[in-house]
């Protein structure tokens, strides 16, 4: 990749990273490495570094130059925006060309995970890939048993190259039925087990759409569905959940695909859910990103933008699908077969949301990893296509798993004690799905990953996240509470859905998050517990057997300090401080300055009796306090007039 770097180092660059709550541009030096853009602040006290992984860059724009220099706008795949001001236009052009190429790898071998080498040996790397053991999870949910068995029909990916090689099917499904059914299903994705609910013996199964067209039928496929029903002794029918809008499903008939004809399949109940396709979701997400980036919107702008994006509507549809499945399985004890078109996007969403609702295990840190590994990775969700790991067809890109993660987040807002992990676990997973720093999410199915020999050439992300789990713990999680046990029954009324600011609007996040504070308190309590034990031991020792011990000195974090961190700082004294963390990832977490630090009032120079001008006092304030005051005009590319950037010097 080095050959794409034209200018490895540019000095006197100004960087504004608004997503970390920054208001003023920092001056520093920009370096290009094979993998990262690195910005080092000149400020000798902080020398703050910002690292931007090339593969995280979603777009490199070059707005028109301003008198003070040329601009570069980097948008990242986790929806952050970095504004750069480069003194020399030549440098800017070089950077633009380099970054454009570097951010669009053409081959897997160019990806970061292939060169990323954490400090572990070969054994550890190999072990990292066995950290999540799906067979163990199937065992945990009680399969194989006398209803469900593991089939070898797909070993060596013989009948479906996008499935994993180990799959669970009803015991009564013979190899002939499996093969026959797979021939009647889009891309050979025949019905298999996703989740088995031990309490009711009902199962969640998944597949792709049948190749029924207008009148086609397949005895083996019908037998397969019958077998699924029989594997649930108590029930007389199964639900077939088609997660597509009915109209889309009908349109597929013309292409020889479609949905199950209820006349051909006995004892099925067909249910359409109406989750839109990947293209609708792609453009919807772009719209909600735009809403998050709105500069000084009015309430009407914001709410209208939210409505117009349709994003929350789609999130609700996904959650509704999961809730329907969970209710069927848990309350009615009826098995459900879920599919969409190919059975790797909406199906993955609906099945995994249902699992989160049905089983408390999937609400733990380890459990969510297992769930993503099963319903997404092993069942052939096309990660590399959906998340644009390589410079391929942009029409294949779509935020499918983003929506699953957001559903989990929305649920955690309704059930604050039910999840072992916090919001940053979700955003961290989101980051790694896009970053290609680890091999876990590379490729589009298990076969591809095997062919690439990813296990040998890269590392798995899960052990790393597990190692860091302390920072992902939800302090409110309590397994004993009723909301943490058994089934979650979410309210899916529209008013229960909120914009996920942790992802789409980082600049306006609340400055004092109670969960962060509680984590600090719990950490302190833990220390106190240790201290307590130590003291007790010592007192016992002292009063009984006077030995001269070293005084046990438990480093004591003053609670007042941790409280203060989350208490509103006085803006005039703290606001202009640079962010003192040198760790780019922690920068925005440490910055707890209220997002709306207001600059001095813009009312000077008004003639109060000049009515036409008077209202601008209003506008200035509302703009300045909306979290994007650094630019006094509402021009996003406002380097020309940004007081902040120029004034910082």
């Amino acid at each position, binding site marked *: 990749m080095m050959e794409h770097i034209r200018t490895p180092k540019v000095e006197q660059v100004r960087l504004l990273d608004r997503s970390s709550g920054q208001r003023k541009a920092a001056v520093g030096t920009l370096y290009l490495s094979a993998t990262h853009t690195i910005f080092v602040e000149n400020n000798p006290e902080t020398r703050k570094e910002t690292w931007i992984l090339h593969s995280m860059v979603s777009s490199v724009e070059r707005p028109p130059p301003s008198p003070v220099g040329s601009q570069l706008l980097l948008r990242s795949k986790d929806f952050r925006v970095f504004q750069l001001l480069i003194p020399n236009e030549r440098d800017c052009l070089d950077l633009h060309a380099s970054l454009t190429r570097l951010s669009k790898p053409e081959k897997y071998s160019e990806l970061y995970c292939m060169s990323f080498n954490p400090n572990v040996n070969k054994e550890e790397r190999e072990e990292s890939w066995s950290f999540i053991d799906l067979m163990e999870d199937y065992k945990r949910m009680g399969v194989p048993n006398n209803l469900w068995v593991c089939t070898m029909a797909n070993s060596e990916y013989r009948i479906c190259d996008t499935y994993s090689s180990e799959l669970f099917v009803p015991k009564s499904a013979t190899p002939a039925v499996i093969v026959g059914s797979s021939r009647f299903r889009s891309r050979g994705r025949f019905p298999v087990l996703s989740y088995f609910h031990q309490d009711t013996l009902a199962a969640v199964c998944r597949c792709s759409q049948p190749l029924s067209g207008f009148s086609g039928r397949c005895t083996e496929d019908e037998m397969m569905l019958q077998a699924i029903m029989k594997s649930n002794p108590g029930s007389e029918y199964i639900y077939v959940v088609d997660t597509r809008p009915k109209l889309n499903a009908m349109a597929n008939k013309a292409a020889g695909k479609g949905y199950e004809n209820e006349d051909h399949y006995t004892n099925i109940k067909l249910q359409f859910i109406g989750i839109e396709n990947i293209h609708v979701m792609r453009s919807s997400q772009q719209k909600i990103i735009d809403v998050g980036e709105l500069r000084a919107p009015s309430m009407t702008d914001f709410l209208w933008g939210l409505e117009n994006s349709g994003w929350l509507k789609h999130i609700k549809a996904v959650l509704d699908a999961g809730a329907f499945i969970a209710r069927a399985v848990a309350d009615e004890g009826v098995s459900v077969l879920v599919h969409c078109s190919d059975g790797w996007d909406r199906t993955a969403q609906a099945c995994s949301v249902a699992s989160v609702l049905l089983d408390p295990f999937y609400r733990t840190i380890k459990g969510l990893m297992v769930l993503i590994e099963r319903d997404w990775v092993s069942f052939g969700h096309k990660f590399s296509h959906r998340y644009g790991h390589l410079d391929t067809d942009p029409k294949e890109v779509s935020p499918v798993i983003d929506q699953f993660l957001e559903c989990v987040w929305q649920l955690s807002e309704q059930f*604050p004690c039910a999840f072992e992990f916090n919001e940053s676990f979700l955003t961290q997973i989101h980051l790694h799905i896009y970053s290609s720093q680890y091999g876990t999410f590379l490729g589009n199915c298990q076969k591809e990953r095997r062919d690439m020999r990813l296990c040998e050439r890269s590392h798995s992300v899960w052990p790393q996240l597990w190692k860091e789990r302390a920072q992902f713990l939800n302090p409110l999680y309590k397994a004993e509470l009723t909301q943490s046990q058994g089934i979650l029954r979410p309210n899916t009324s529209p008013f229960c859905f909120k914009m996920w600011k942790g992802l789409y609007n980082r600049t306006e996040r*609340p400055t004092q998050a109670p969960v962060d504070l509680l984590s600090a308190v719990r950490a302190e309590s833990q220390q106190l517990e240790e201290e307590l034990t130590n003291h007790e031991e010592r007192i016992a020792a002292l009063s009984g057997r006077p030995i001269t011990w070293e005084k046990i000195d438990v480093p004591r974090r003053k609670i007042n300090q941790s409280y203060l961190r989350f208490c*509103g700082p006085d803006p005039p004294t703290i606001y202009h401080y640079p962010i003192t963390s040198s760790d780019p990832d922690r920068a925005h977490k440490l910055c707890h300055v209220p997002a*709306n630090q207001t600059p001095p009032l813009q009312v000077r120079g008004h*003639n109060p009796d000049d009515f036409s001008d008077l209202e601008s006092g209003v506008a200035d304030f509302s703009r300045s306090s909306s979290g994007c005051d650094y630019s006094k005009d509402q021009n996003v590319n406002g380097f020309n007039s940004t007081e902040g950037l120029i004034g910082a010097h």
Partner: protein
Amino acid sequence: MEFAELIKTPRVDGVVLHRPFLPTVEGTLCLTGHHLILSSRQDNTEELWLLHSNIDAIEKRFVGSLGSIIVKCKDLRIIKLDIPGMDECLNIASSIEALSTLDSVSLMYPFFYRPMFEVIEDGWNTFRPADAFKDLESMTDEWRLSDVNKDFSICLSYAPLVAVPKDIDDETLRKVATFRHGGRFPVLSYYHKKNGMVMMRAGQPLTGTSGRRCKEDEKLINATLRPGKRGYIIDTRTVNVAQQAKAKGGGFESEANYPQWRRIHKAIERSNVLQESLIKLVEACNDQTHSMDRWLSKLEASNWQTHVKEILTTACLAAQCIDREGASVLVHGTEGTDSTLQVTSLAQIILDPASRTIRGFQNLVEREWLQAGHPFQVRCSQSAYSNTKSRQEAPVFLLFLDCVWQILRQFPCSFEFNESFLVLLFEHAYASQFGTFLGNCAADRVKLGLLEKTVSLWSWVNRQQELERLTNPLYEANSLVIWPSVAPQSLLLWEGVFLRWNRSSKCLDEAYEEMVHIIEYNKELQSKVNTLRRQLAQLETEDPLLQSP
């Protein structure tokens, strides 16, 4: 008038009560002068006691001989009573209607209520202007307490004692009062200890179309300026509205007559617009059949969140002028009893850490709302289910509480009280057994004899068991100014009020308890460790071996 005349059927058996998120109850319905009571005949008696004054509207429905009354409460709850018998149902309905719309204040429940608790501290004496002034005196000698309004002759809506600049005598005040709407001459609202700047409030100046001026008014407000310093006048109305007010004799301070002041116009809506907004918002929240699109568009169309944003923005502006610009501020709208008070009280929440304590917030409500003459009686006579438009009711105080909640949510550790306290104030402002929110101003309260005849809400709140419930476990005194974000993304719908009866809060309550537990466990540990430390220290000094290692 006797209540008995209004109660045609005092008692009906076999009534079924439907409430949100609770099982239905069958029991006996009783009507008293002030309450609707439903008591199940089970041993573990479950009872509903509903103040008639909490009832905003009722609807009757009949299916055969079974009648239903849908009772819509001012706290936004909706309950349904199934009453066997057409006559009984009609009688009950007409009684409720009559009893919930009594005209005479002195027939209200607070005049009949006798506290079932021991009053430790009489809330009527807890916050007296004289005491507040003592605090002020300790900080500055530039102000004095004037009793020019002692018989409410100068200004009907002011308290008998008000703080004014020291150099302004009562005679001047009398003249100024004639120049300000409702006689509301500029008085001190808040003194910013940090830099000695002040916030004042008043009614609009009565300049009229002729541009009348009042030298005394100019003198009064100029007396609050430091030499060479300028002040800001924040007019809560848009320029156009302020202009139009001239035609009705009102107006604003012109640049020519007030050269030392900069005037800024903001756009806080008037009460009838706010009432309309509340009705629309609650309607949107109560319809659970909405699609996402429809919900968002109705939320937007209600404009409620826009009002929250406007009010907060104006308050931030006032706070910014004082704290960041080092300038004094005068706030007024038209009457100076609604939007003005929203702004001055919220600015104090931002600036003054004391107003973020439980007692300090009571003090704030007492000073900036009750004694400042917010007409609670008329504003809170109806809530979101009222259909009598064009009256004077308006959720001015509720909007203030909503804004406080927004700041509380953004600074969850800086307030001594929790959300429950705000909800409690909302409830009591609309219907209460206490006299605190009765009447429209101090003069009314004297006339009604509230101090003698009713119990103050503060008497009840300031008791240990109530305080415990209302205390924010995360609170850590924060002496700093807190600047809330007013970006739309940062302002949320106040679920604790508007979705309270539409979604179960069980899981959120559990989370709150868990939070309290985490904090209390930590405190317990700390005190234990401290004890051990002392013990250890003692052992160590007693132990001769330790002295000479």
